[in-house]
């Protein structure tokens, strides 16, 4: 708040920054590009951590009766005489889910790319509130530290699932986790604050700081997606903060908002959580859809098919996203009369996704497909997201959800949309914008190998989980042996686990490519992909302040293979006003 007022008093942001100390330039920088890169390193680190937790979980699920290798290096409170303890398994699931969602994917989508791309693609010098932007990164540091250190406090890390349903999450005596849960909640409140500061910046920048000629319907779809995502974050995160604070009070000072013995309502927690939680999953997919649209257009050398329909699809997903949350609660004891409304709204939210899917295909149709690594990941996104989305239809149908709720069918759905969706698009985005960020290309060959390994092992890990769900394997169980209906799934689980290890390993191939290219990668041209949007019309990497002169925009965002241009197959947004810009339609 105070910073915003400080900024409101209006100092020039850029002029003062001729000579900056190293600290101001690279550490406490207010340059949106530096902040984006800081976010990138932070979130890749958490991706690695979240993946590591998943590997431990997978080991336990596949071989519950075998001690885990190197188990001795863990404290007794986690791994006793080589065996993962059930309470530690619960912490693993919880922290895997929450780290992936809150510290890896979400900040990678918005922290990195909203920061990096919004000013560049709109032709602005920086964010509207650069200092606030810097805070939104630095708030993530204590949040991350809280999260990581919670593993090592008495009672261990939070273990009530990433959805932390009360009363399990509210009463330490029921889990043995007290401090860990509280640290989790504190860290989520911080992340919420960071994300609100971020959203505020993105929204204001998009609304008020577009370059001349950058009308709403000339904005690249990435910006549209990030803009709408910011609105979702702005309206959803505070509800989580409020609910989280109430839960924290239940934990610490003895209130009873969600505890029935004190008159509270356990279902209220679920409603509040999912009122946030469902918009949250769209926060996790919309930017990914934006990147995909961008990369598909570039890779197909065609304008986006149905640009306006895409924009309206994004907007309606966001709008409907606020009225479907009950589909997570069909079996929760919620008033069954609400079931019908939520089924219908949930099914209808699939319509804009269908529109988007078909428009992506339309973009590729009769294109001139350049299958470079970013393009491969973008196509992979469409292919995998479709699978994840289609499995969502099963759950949206209330009667079917009775059976598959809380089984591995859901786990399969989660990962098809979050990994096959968000993370595939993110990998594509990293390969795609890497040259702009760092001035060097990532290695193509390694990139392609990484893509194929990821695609294959991803499907080997998560496709069989649909089968596990159909058989009836419950989520979040430490040991599936002992259930009669689960006899005979051990081999499938072992296959999944081996594939998961391979998937994780291919992540390190990516890491190697990433770091190697930082120093050794081929020097990148300013516009290595022959792309049209504004960020490619700057040097790689762009200078502080982005533009010596603010660009003027004459064309829509994805003018590839324009018949009026003969010397090349693209037309930058700020180039040649004499080429007629076809307005929408055909």
């Amino acid at each position: 708040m105070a910073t915003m007022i400080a900024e409101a008093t209006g100092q020039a942001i850029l002029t003062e920054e001729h000579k900056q100390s190293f600290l101001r330039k690279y550490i406490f920088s207010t340059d949106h590009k530096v902040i984006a890169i800081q976010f990138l390193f932070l979130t890749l680190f958490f991706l690695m951590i979240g993946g590591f937790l998943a590997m431990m979980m997978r080991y336990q699920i596949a071989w519950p009766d075998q001690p885990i290798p190197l188990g001795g290096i863990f404290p007794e409170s986690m791994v006793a005489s080589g065996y993962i303890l059930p309470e530690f398994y619960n912490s693993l699931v919880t922290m895997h889910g929450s780290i992936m969602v809150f510290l890896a994917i979400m900040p990678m989508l918005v922290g990195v790319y909203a920061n990096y791309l919004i000013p560049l693609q709109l032709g602005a010098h920086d964010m509207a509130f650069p200092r606030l932007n810097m805070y939104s990164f630095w708030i993530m540091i204590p949040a991350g530290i809280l999260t990581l250190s919670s593993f090592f406090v008495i009672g261990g890390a939070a273990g009530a699932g990433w959805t932390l349903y009360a009363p399990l999450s509210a009463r330490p005596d029921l889990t043995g986790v007290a401090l860990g849960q509280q640290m989790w909640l504190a860290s989520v409140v911080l992340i919420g604050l960071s994300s609100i500061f971020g959203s505020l910046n993105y929204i204001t920048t998009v609304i008020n700081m577009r370059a001349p000629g950058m009308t709403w319907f000339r904005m690249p779809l990435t910006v549209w997606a990030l803009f709408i995502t910011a609105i979702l974050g702005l309206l959803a995160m505070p509800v989580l903060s409020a609910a989280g604070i109430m839960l924290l009070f239940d934990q610490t000072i003895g209130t009873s908002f969600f505890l029935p013995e004190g008159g509270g309502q356990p279902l209220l927690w679920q409603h509040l959580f999912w009122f946030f939680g469902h918009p949250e999953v769209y926060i996790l997919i919309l930017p990914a859809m934006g990147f995909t649209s961008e990369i598909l257009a570039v890779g197909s050398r065609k304008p986006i098919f149905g640009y306006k329909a895409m924009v309206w699809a994004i907007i309606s997903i966001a709008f409907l996203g606020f009225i479907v949350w009950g589909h997570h609660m069909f079996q929760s004891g919620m008033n069954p009369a609400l079931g019908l409304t939520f089924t219908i709204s949930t099914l209808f939210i699939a319509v804009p996704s269908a529109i988007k899917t078909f428009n992506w295909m339309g973009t590729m149709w009769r294109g001139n497909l350049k299958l470079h690594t970013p393009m491969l990941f973008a196509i992979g996104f469409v292919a995998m997201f479709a699978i994840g989305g289609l499995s969502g239809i099963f759950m949206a149908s209330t009667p079917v959800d009775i059976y598959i709720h809380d089984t591995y069918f859901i786990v399969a759905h989660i990962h098809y949309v979050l990994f096959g969706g968000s993370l595939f698009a993110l990998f594509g985005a990293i390969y795609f914008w890497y040259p702009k960020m760092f001035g060097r290309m990532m290695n193509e060959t390694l990139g392609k190998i990484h893509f194929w390994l990821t695609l294959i092992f991803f499907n080997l890990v998560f496709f069989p989980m649909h089968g596990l769900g159909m058989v009836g394997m419950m989520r979040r169980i430490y040991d599936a042996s002992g259930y009669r209906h689960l006899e005979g799934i051990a081999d499938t689980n072992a296959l999944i686990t081996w594939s998961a290890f391979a998937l994780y390993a291919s992540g390190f191939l990516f890491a190697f490519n990433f770091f190697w290219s930082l120093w050794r990668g081929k020097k990148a041209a300013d516009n290595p992909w022959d792309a049209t949007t504004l960020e490619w019309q700057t040097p790689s990497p762009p200078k502080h302040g982005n533009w010596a002169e603010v660009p003027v925009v004459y064309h829509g965002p994805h003018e590839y293979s324009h018949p009026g241009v003969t010397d090349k197959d693209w037309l930058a947004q700020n180039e040649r006003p004499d080429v007629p810009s076809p307005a929408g339609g055909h």
Partner: protein
Amino acid sequence: MAHAAAAARAPERGLDVYTQKVGMWVFLCSEVMFFAGLIGSYVILRFGASDSWGQPGEVLNVPVTAVNTFILICSSVTMVKAFAAAEADDQKGIKLYLFLTFLMGAMFLGIQAYEYTELILHGEWQGSHGFTPQAGLYGATFFTMTGFHGFHVFLGVVCLGWAFKRSLAGEWGPKNTHGLEVLGLYWHFVDLVWIILFTIVYLI
């Protein structure tokens, strides 16, 4: 750097208000959702729970809080007066009104602190002595909602102090009203939330 060499055309039309004001309104939208989470929970818990709530005046001291409401409303009017003074370049007025706003904000907090102490030490609710956050849903929701409102007032008071300090150096004036206007938006919003809270917590 030569950013000053402005483009041939003006930037695209946004909301037709300056950026900091847009930012504050966007921030207030998120605040609306935060308080909606708290107030919504209160409404829902009260509507759906078996727990009972005190009648107005039974537990809470309505007259004292009515005075406090009065103070907060007055501070809103002085805030807006400070802004008007800045537009009119009335330096004395700016200082006076900012100081008054700051003072009344601080008074609000003081009275709230007094109210809390009284309730915790001498409040009576359902036979138990002392009305605390642990006193059922009534106590929990009461302290959480008013507490978070108080926290917002506190942040506002800090910013008001800072604005007042700057006014002593004569920094506000017709050329520099944005900071005051944005701070004012925040302050009025806090007042607005209190209007709702006072009604549903103390009077219904």
